[in-house]
């Protein structure tokens, strides 16, 4: 990896006890849940990683421990560097501190993760669903959520499905 990234990763290892993985020049650093806000603040202030390019989550079901990884992709425009922080989250403890105080843009990204995966962010200023309607139950991007929505209606089962289909009233 880039020499400047090596220094940064070494500091993160000492401060936060983080492990890291490398792949073709990209660095993925694994950080614990309690230390993520400090790590983000540190990277933003000390090392000019001022852009949170992407924030998303991955579901590793049926593995429960950890089940989710939350991914923060930070970019430094002045140094032309990019680093990825990952938080392993267990299936039983779905509370993560919010990053909106560090990066304002994390507001909607965390709403999307709350909607799609069901991971709660503590002290989030606006914890509503962002993509699905408000009264929707379930979290669609989890791996145990059914993939299709309805059974295709072919000729042989047309009448059975026709009875169940919710047609609109006038």
């Amino acid at each position, binding site marked *: 990896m880039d020499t400047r990234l090596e220094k940064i990763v070494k500091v993160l290892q000492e401060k936060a006890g983080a492990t890291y993985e490398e792949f073709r020049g990209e660095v993925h650093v694994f950080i614990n849940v309690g230390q993520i806000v400090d790590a983000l603040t540190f990277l933003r202030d000390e090392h000019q990683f001022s852009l949170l390019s992407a924030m998303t989550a991955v579901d590793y079901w049926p593995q429960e421990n950890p089940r989710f990884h939350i991914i923060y992709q930070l970019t430094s425009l002045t140094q032309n560097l990019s680093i990825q922080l990952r938080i392993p989250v267990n299936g039983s403890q779905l509370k993560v501190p919010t990053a909106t105080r560090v990066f304002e843009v994390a507001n909607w990204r965390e709403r999307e993760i709350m909607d799609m995966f069901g991971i709660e962010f503590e002290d989030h200023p606006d914890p509503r669903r962002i993509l*699905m*309607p408000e009264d929707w139950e379930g979290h669609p991007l989890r791996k145990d959520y059914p*993939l299709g*929505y309805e059974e295709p209606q072919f000729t042989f089962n047309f009448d059975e499905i026709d009875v169940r*289909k919710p*047609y*609109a009233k006038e």
Partner: protein
Amino acid sequence: MGVEEKLGDMGVVTTTLETAVNWARTNAMWPMLFGLACCAIEMMSAQAANYDMSRFGMELMRPSPRQSDLMIVAGRVSRKMAPVLRRLYDQMPEPKWVIAMGDCASCGGVFNNYAIVQGVDEVVPVDVYVAGCPPRPEALIHGVVTLFEKVKGEKFADLAKA
């Protein structure tokens, strides 16, 4: 609904009157601009110069639901958009018709998932379904002409009872 409720079934008078009223309705039916996704491009090109829908009376498309007769639902309707669609349909004055254009509006299309309404007839009552992904402008015009034939067959008695 105006004329129908007052006349009911009076034989020869209503037959000629029905023909006249339906002729008037089909000859100047103004669609509402409801292009949501890719089918909107085909709807635009059906309205434009090469395949002209103005020949069939759809001189212009009104963006306001209060001034339109026909709603062409062109494109996929997501679950969040469905109440909006219903509200716009309710704001259209009678008589109104709906064409579900394309596969996504008819049956959910390729999107069999949590986010897309599986067929817009779960939200509004549809008169004509036009298949295609997207349907060619000629197919949309064929759907419009089919709707005209349906309107020409409408009778006062049915509308008065409804």
